[in-house]
């Protein structure tokens, strides 16, 4: 089941990437990032059966980081929404010259 799990992980990850590229809604982009994280988690879990328990421990840490990131990221989205009345990522173009 390892190969299958890894392939599944790859497909999920790619879907997440495609979502990030296709959508403009910041919250949905965020969700796609969560998909990508979960895809990676799946790969870790699958490999932990063969390599050792550390894979599961790593997933534990990933979850903690994801939780903190979701809290902060969503707070940022709220702050931005207050400013622009929108969560469209095309409005956020301050990262330029």
């Amino acid at each position, binding site marked *: *089941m*390892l*190969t*299958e*799990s*890894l*392939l*599944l*992980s*790859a*497909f999920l990850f*790619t*879907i*997440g*990437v*495609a*979502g990030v*590229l*296709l*959508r*403009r*809604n910041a*919250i*949905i982009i*965020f*969700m*796609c990032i*969560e*998909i990508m994280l*979960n895809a990676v*988690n799946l790969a870790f*879990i699958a*490999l*932990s*059966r*063969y390599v050792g*328990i*550390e894979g*599961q421990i790593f997933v*534990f*840490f990933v*979850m*903690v*980081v*994801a*939780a*903190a*990131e*979701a*809290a*902060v990221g*969503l*707070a*940022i*989205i*709220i702050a931005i*929404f*207050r400013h622009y009345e929108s*969560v*469209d990522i095309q409005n956020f173009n301050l990262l330029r010259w």
Partner: protein
Amino acid sequence: METFLFTLFGGLALASAFVVVTARNPVASALFLLVTLAALAALFVLLDAQFIAVLQVIVYIGAILVLFLFVIMLLNLGYAYRPDVRPLPWRLVAGGVGLALVIQLAIAVQPARSLREAAGTTGPEALVALQQAKGVVGAVAEPLFSDYLVPFELTSILLLVGIVGALLLAKRRLD
């Protein structure tokens, strides 16, 4: 049976992830993300990671996803949304990049086959034995509180920083 369940939940995860990306309504995306996460939790059980599966349900579905839904509702994004999928050039770019990524990852999976073959003797049986000896939670907890104690404690600081940061960013300006 395992293959069946794997195929079922794997297909479910893929399909609902696809809907997450394509759904026009953010609430729908969030709910389909729930399905994806739940299906992955089931896969985790199949892959002998019962403790992580429980965490997945509690932390991801119970906390993070609820937070998403909460924000969507707070911002009134549940209706009167604008379609936000990008136009054709972006779809082509996304398709191209995605295809290339899948191909490359699929190639990258190849070495994993030989890894499994090489690790055949210490395959899933070793992990199962460990879990039977120490319990499903104990197998994860023991290294977490010994070898990985410092990173574990650091996560608490990370969470604290996350709380403070989120509060600071999200609160209304009082001035």
